[in-house]
């Protein structure tokens, strides 16, 4: 193989081929493989999902990966390991620098919230090892004999743990200084220590043991899952095809989106990693190997573990939760029911933590390389600067922690940027570099050559596919996220939802009372939570006495059927809280709750009394007025919280935009100076590749 042009500074290179494969696979393998893939598959046709998924792998995943690997290796020959420098070396036009800045922005911004997910995995792993989950689940399921009630209790306990410890229940977890803050700090130190060691001694050395260990742990868990009694039921839930879904555009978009996000292609990670290859190192086979390792983790390990087990132990509803729900609520709950759950839970979250670290490293290296190549900073200085920037970003994410609003919105905008960046990269490869010329470069040193039609694919098919993903994905998600940033919409909507929840109190409590699997203590607890949620806390002891007397009354009576028994409970709730099970013209009642200036609680109580129909005889107007006042206070609280969330989401977007502008300016400055000089030196040494 040829050496680099002599005038360029000596740069690090990967130590071995298997090392780079594992590093790139480690970059791609993350929570998306183990959690997002099964969630997407089960909600989009089951086994049928694999048809668009495999097609997308062939038409989108592999071509983009090959393009990115080729451009990265080419940029490395110019002495560039950073996206702006690589883009500039290949195409000396403004859009290339913008694309380079985008390929810096995305990994660094993702890292600012991904570090929290990494920490969550570590926290769960430690909590399992300590036996914390076993103790928690033991407490909440004490005295519960019914399986459905046990599932509800365990899932509820996990959600409460997540809300409490990770700050999902409120904003400002950062300032509470709890265990999670220290764990975030520990994860930061681990990531930056590894990245400080460099590409070979740090990233490659870590991935060479972390990836095999991760896969080994997952295979052990897979064997345990596949030997569970009646696992075919869970596998059927996951893999049985719903053929009708094949004609649903949503399924095709979900499949292509999953391939794209899962392979982590097109937005700078691979560009950076592949720039550390030598001139004639094989990009075709290495890229395919990294992609196939990712698919192994996704289809085999991801597709056969979580959803089948979740269905088996917890039922369909919990098995179809979203990525976060599946990962951080459903999985711990599964471990309560699985034999040796404590051991397997620790192992599962340990492997997820390793997967998250290998991904985190790939998000940090592009920016480190940019600071080194673009401004001649030492690695220590680059690591220090990036540490400060990412710590600031992570702090903001931990400040706006309620409902994971910052994580959610940052993820949305990053995903959008990822599709744009990948489209730009493929268009650059196909139309600026030239597909034929690019494919020729791709085949340099290849173990086997890519098919001839790949040039056509890269020029026409892949960009079309990507644009379709962009349009479809934006059409599906953009409105809800844009609405989520609008305080004028979010505030009233949250208040209205709370009022509707309050008006459903009678039905909620009746269902709780009718559930014989709940013992008196559990029932009192759940009744308290339900009334507290709509602003009726009262006193726990008083409420517990009321629950006991209501149940005792019911036990002393003989009911003709279940409907009559529910009616009894329903009337008891109506008398106690002044809320009927139904009202005529509910919309006007809800509007009345929200029109605090127009209707006093007493006036609205009279109105509800008139609209309560047959239930009016159980209503006490004074109690209803108290109920209205309390619900209005709670609704106002929700309105304010929703406005804070919407403003936090706006702040996130503003931060991303400003960060991008800053990166564009820095890229421009670097390309005009240090990067420009290095590229010019490479050209003087005989390397000529300007495109466009």
């Amino acid at each position, binding site marked *: 193989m040829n050496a680099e042009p002599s005038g360029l500074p000596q740069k690090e290179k990967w130590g071995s081929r298997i090392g780079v494969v594992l590093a790139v696979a480690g970059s791609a393998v993350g929570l998306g493989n183990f959690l997002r893939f099964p969630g997407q598959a089960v909600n989009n046709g089951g086994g049928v999902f694999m048809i668009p998924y495999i097609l997308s792998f062939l038409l989108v995943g592999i071509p983009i990966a090959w393009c990115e690997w080729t451009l990265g290796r080419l940029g490395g020959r110019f002495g560039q390991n950073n996206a702006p420098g690589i883009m500039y070396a290949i195409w000396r036009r403004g859009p290339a620098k913008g694309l380079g800045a985008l390929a810096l922005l995305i990994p660094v911004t993702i890292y600012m919230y991904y570090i929290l997910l990494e920490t969550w995995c570590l926290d769960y792993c430690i909590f399992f090892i300590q036996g914390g989950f076993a103790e928690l689940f033991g407490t909440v399921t004490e005295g519960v004999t019914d399986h459905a009630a046990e599932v509800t209790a365990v899932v509820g306990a996990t959600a409460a743990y997540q809300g409490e410890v990770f700050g999902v229940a409120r904003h400002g977890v950062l300032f509470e200084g709890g265990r999670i803050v220290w764990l975030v700090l520990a994860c930061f130190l681990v990531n930056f220590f590894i990245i400080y060691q460099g590409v070979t001694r740090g990233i490659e050395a870590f991935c060479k043991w972390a990836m095999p260990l991760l896969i080994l742990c997952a295979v052990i868990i897979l064997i345990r899952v596949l030997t569970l*009694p009646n696992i075919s039921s869970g596998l059927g839930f996951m893999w049985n095809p719903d053929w009708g879904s094949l004609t649903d555009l949503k399924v095709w978009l979900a499949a292509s989106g999953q391939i794209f996000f899962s392979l982590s292609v097109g937005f700078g990670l691979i560009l950076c990693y592949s720039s550390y290859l030598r001139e004639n190192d094989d990009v075709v086979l290495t890229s395919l190997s990294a992609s196939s390792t990712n698919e192994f983790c996704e289809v085999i390990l991801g597709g056969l573990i979580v959803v089948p087990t979740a269905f088996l132990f917890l039922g369909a509803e919990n098995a179809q939760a979203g990525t976060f729900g599946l990962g951080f609520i459903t999985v711990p709950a599964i471990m309560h029911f699985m034999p040796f759950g404590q051991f397997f839970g620790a192992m599962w979250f340990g492997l997820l933590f390793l997967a998250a670290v290998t991904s985190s490293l790939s998000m940090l290296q592009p920016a480190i390389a940019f600071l080194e190549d673009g401004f001649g900073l030492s690695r220590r200085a680059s690591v220090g600067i990036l540490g400060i920037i990412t710590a600031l970003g992570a702090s903001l994410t931990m400040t706006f922690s309620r409902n994971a609003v910052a994580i959610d919105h940052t993820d949305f905008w990053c995903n959008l940027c990822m599709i744009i960046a990948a489209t730009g990269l493929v268009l650059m490869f196909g139309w600026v570099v030239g597909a034929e010329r690019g494919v020729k470069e791709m085949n340099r040193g290849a173990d086997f050559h890519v098919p001839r039609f790949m040039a056509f694919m890269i020029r026409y098919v892949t960009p079309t596919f990507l644009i379709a993903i962009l349009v479809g994905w934006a059409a599906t998600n953009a409105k809800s996220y844009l609405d989520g940033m609008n305080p004028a919409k979010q505030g009233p909507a949250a208040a209205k939802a709370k009022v509707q929840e309050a008006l459903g109190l009678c039905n909620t409590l009746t269902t709780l009372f009718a559930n014989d699997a709940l013992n008196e203590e559990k029932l009192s607890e759940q009744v308290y939570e339900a009334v507290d949620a709509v602003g009726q806390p009262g006193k726990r002891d008083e409420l517990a006495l009321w629950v006991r007397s209501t149940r005792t009354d019911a036990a002393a009576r003989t009911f003709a059927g279940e409907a009559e028994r529910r009616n009894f409970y329903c009337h008891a709730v109506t008398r106690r809280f002044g809320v009927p099970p139904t009202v005529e013209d509910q919309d006007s009642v809800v509007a009345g709750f929200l029109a605090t200036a127009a209707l006093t609680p007493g006036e609205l109580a009279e109105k509800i009394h008139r609209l309560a129909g047959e239930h009016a005889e159980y209503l006490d107007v004074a109690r209803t007025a108290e109920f209205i006042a309390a619900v209005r206070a709670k609704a106002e609280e929700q309105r304010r919280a929703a406005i804070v969330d919407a403003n936090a989401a706006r702040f996130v977007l503003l931060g991303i935009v400003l960060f991008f502008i800053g990166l564009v300016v820095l890229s421009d400055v670097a390309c005009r100076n240090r990067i420009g000089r290095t590229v010019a030196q490479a050209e003087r040494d005989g390397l000529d590749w300007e495109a466009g």
Partner: protein
Amino acid sequence: MSTVAMILAQAGDEEVTLTAAGGMIMTVSVLLVLGLCAFCFWRILREPTPSEHHHAPLDIDTQDLDG
């Protein structure tokens, strides 16, 4: 409730089992991925490590560390 009894009770509620079509899609998907992985790693591992890789990259002074 024992795990087995609980699983059977749960499964009885939902009445789902792996159909022939589901089993076939699952098997084909798994075999495709395994085949691709086996092919790639066989091609990678059969080749001797290139000569320049014998020189540990640690010997290269990257000049990007403080010191």
